[in-house]
């Protein structure tokens, strides 16, 4: 090898190294620059100020706990007890939680020596261990208390409203009403609401014990009360999940059925006419490009909110995607099998049936089943926009900003639903086209 050659190789190698070095430092530098830009474009410095930590705290505590409201209406002196302060969670007339006692003076024991007493004439006493007795008098629209001017940060007082937050519960006093919130762990009334005779009855007692409700058998009565639970709405939730799966199923399968014949029109091998092929392909590109979001918006105008609109939005978008992948699969079909079938004297339709379809079916089925799972997730999102299914229930529960335990319930159900569909589509794939990866 002459020295000239070595020199040339060396410069070449050095050039390669330079390029490599430039690449190795350039790419991270570009990404870093982009991160810096995003840092300011997304206004991250002020994010912490905007973030509502109070909301975060409510969220995390509400997810796993519930509160029972004890409310005195200061205009008529009536006291009501309700889970989450909702009418559907109210205690029946004459019943009250066992941590409330007394007749003239109602004593609410929040635990840990924190006691609230509802006295006659709209007076209230709050006895907090280690702090002392707070006495309050509500008159008209004002509240007067014996609180000193210098208050700890868990008491917030003005002459209109006094709010006391203790680890055991919250007390809010205004002129019109006095409220005590007592917190408990768990999802209350998940099985039965308070008006059901089965509330507070053990599981085995419902199954094997004496008849509780004289009009109904235990099991059927319990099932019906659970199913019609007004607080957790199990019936509506089940329907909503059914709607979401229905949207995914109808959309995916409908799209596959429409896309298959169109894919033949878009494949070079089966459609010699260039114009028809190009037109079909542009149609696929168009319906894919007009995103599911826009289809949902447009279709919701025509069909109104509901599962059908969501199913059609999925159907139209996926027709484009399926059409594209199906036609690619059809392009890659082996000629030999078609020739073999032709040699037996098969007509064109039989050639497709026995020469083409067996080759493409595994690819198509795998694609369709994969989309069935992914569309269950899309259907949740589309449902939130078009108003159907579990997506709608979730958005509604989040927007009311109080039923976080319901939000947590829906989220768990959604995750379980998607994972079940994932498993189902994998199982079906294994059954129908043989399992590759066990």
């Amino acid at each position, binding site marked *: 090898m002459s020295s000239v050659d070595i020199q040339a190789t060396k410069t070449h190698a050095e050039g390669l190294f330079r390029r490599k070095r430039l690449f190795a430092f350039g790419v991270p530098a570009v990404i870093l620059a982009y991160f810096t830009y995003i840092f300011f474009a997304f206004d991250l410095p002020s994010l912490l100020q905007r*973030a509502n930590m109070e909301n975060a705290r409510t969220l995390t505590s509400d997810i796993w706990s519930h509160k029972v409201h004890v409310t005195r209406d200061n205009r008529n002196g009536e006291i009501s007890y309700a889970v989450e302060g909702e009418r559907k969670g109210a205690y029946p007339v004459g019943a009250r939680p066992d941590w409330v006692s007394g007749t003239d003076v109602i004593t609410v024991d929040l635990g840990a020596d924190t006691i609230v007493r509802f006295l006659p004439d709209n007076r209230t006493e709050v006895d907090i261990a280690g702090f002392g007795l707070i006495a309050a008098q509500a008159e008209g629209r004002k509240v007067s208390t014996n609180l000193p001017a210098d208050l700890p940060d868990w008491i917030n007082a003005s002459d209109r409203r006094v709010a006391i937050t203790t680890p055991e519960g919250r007390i809010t006093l205004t002129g019109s009403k006095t409220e005590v919130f007592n917190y408990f762990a768990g999802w209350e009334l998940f099985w039965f609401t308070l008006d059901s005779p089965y509330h507070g009855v053990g599981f085995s007692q419902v199954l094997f014990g004496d008849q509780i409700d004289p009009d109904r058998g235990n099991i059927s009565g319990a099932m019906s009360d659970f199913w019609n639970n007004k607080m957790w709405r199990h019936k509506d939730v089940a329907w909503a999940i059914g709607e979401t799966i229905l949207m995914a199923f109808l959309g995916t399968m409908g799209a596959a059925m429409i896309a298959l014949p169109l894919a033949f029109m878009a494949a070079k091998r089966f459609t010699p006419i260039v114009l028809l092929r190009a037109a079909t392909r542009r149609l696929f590109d168009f319906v894919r490009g007009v995103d599911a979001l826009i289809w949902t918006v447009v279709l919701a105008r025509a069909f109104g909110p509901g*599962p059908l609109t969501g199913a059609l939005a999925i159907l139209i978008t996926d027709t484009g995607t399926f059409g594209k992948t199906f036609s690619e699969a059809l392009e890659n079909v082996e000629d030999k099998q078609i020739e073999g079938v032709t040699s037996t004297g098969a007509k064109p339709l039989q050639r497709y049936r026995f020469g083409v379809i067996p080759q493409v079916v595994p690819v198509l089925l795998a694609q369709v089943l994969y989309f069935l799972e992914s569309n269950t997730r899309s259907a949740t999102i589309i449902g939130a*926009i078009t108003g159907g299914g579990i997506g709608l229930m979730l958005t509604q529960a989040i927007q009311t*900003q109080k039923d976080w335990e319901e939000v947590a319930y829906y989220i768990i159900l959604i995750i379980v639903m*998607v994972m079940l569909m994932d498993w189902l589509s994998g199982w079906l794939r294994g059954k129908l086209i043989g399992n590759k990866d066990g």
Partner: protein
Amino acid sequence: MTTPVASDAGRPVFLCGETMTATNTGRALNVGDIRESYLAQVGRRRLYSGLALLIFVVLMVSGFNVADERNAGGFWEGLHQIGDYPSEVLAEAWEKRADLPSLIAKFFPALVETINIAAMSTIIGAVAGLILSLLGTRGLAKWPLLIPLFRRFSDILRAIPEIVIALVLIFVLGGGPVPAMIAIALHTAGALAKMFSEVAENADLKPVEGLASTGATWTQRMLLGVLPQVAPNYVSYTLLRFEINIRASAILGFVGAGGLGYELRNAMAWGPGRFDEAAAIFVLLFGTIVFFDQASSRYRNRLTEGQAQ
């Protein structure tokens, strides 16, 4: 002679060959048996396929009826109205076509935000997915005992629809791009972790062993031994995810997470009179999706072709 016929029962061509050989050897009784068992198999097969088809049709029809019933507007009443909204929008946009360029310029920042959300969540999700996939792949994992844990974790990440996390985060962090970014990034991490680990399972372990013999740490083994092998596939999957994430970020905007979707919802809420704005947003969204689809599919083709050589 009977076994091949049984296993190839679905293919008529084979049967002819088999029956002929059977006849030639003169075992006439067997031919009848074979034919009978073949026909019985075909019959059973047809019955099963027919039943499956029947179940499918029943599911489709009853599903359609249920969906139609629970929808606010019926399918057949709505069918002829499909064109109404687009034609109204188009008519108004055409009337005010002179404003369209300025409207597109007006909504361009929102588009940039939507793309930024998608890009950031793809980058973060890809990095997290990469780590999750390496930790959850047999043969590569740093802690082999924890493989199921990382796999289930990415399964759960994948199963959560973006909207769930986005809505909860909007409640805590307020509206804007960050909740959407986190939500999409989490889902992307789960989705990519699965695809990445499928690729990583097929990676050649020799370079990894070689590096291990020089005393390389786990990170070095992964960076220098595994990543160069799987990089083309990983980049290809990441680009595909980016396309998906652009759509997702537009949709999340619609529920309050900023970007183009948010502007679209506002324009829609205004109704007639602001249809030109809706049209401008449609145009932007359509153009962006088509552009990134084409660009990324071209680049992905180059990546996979380069690998085949």
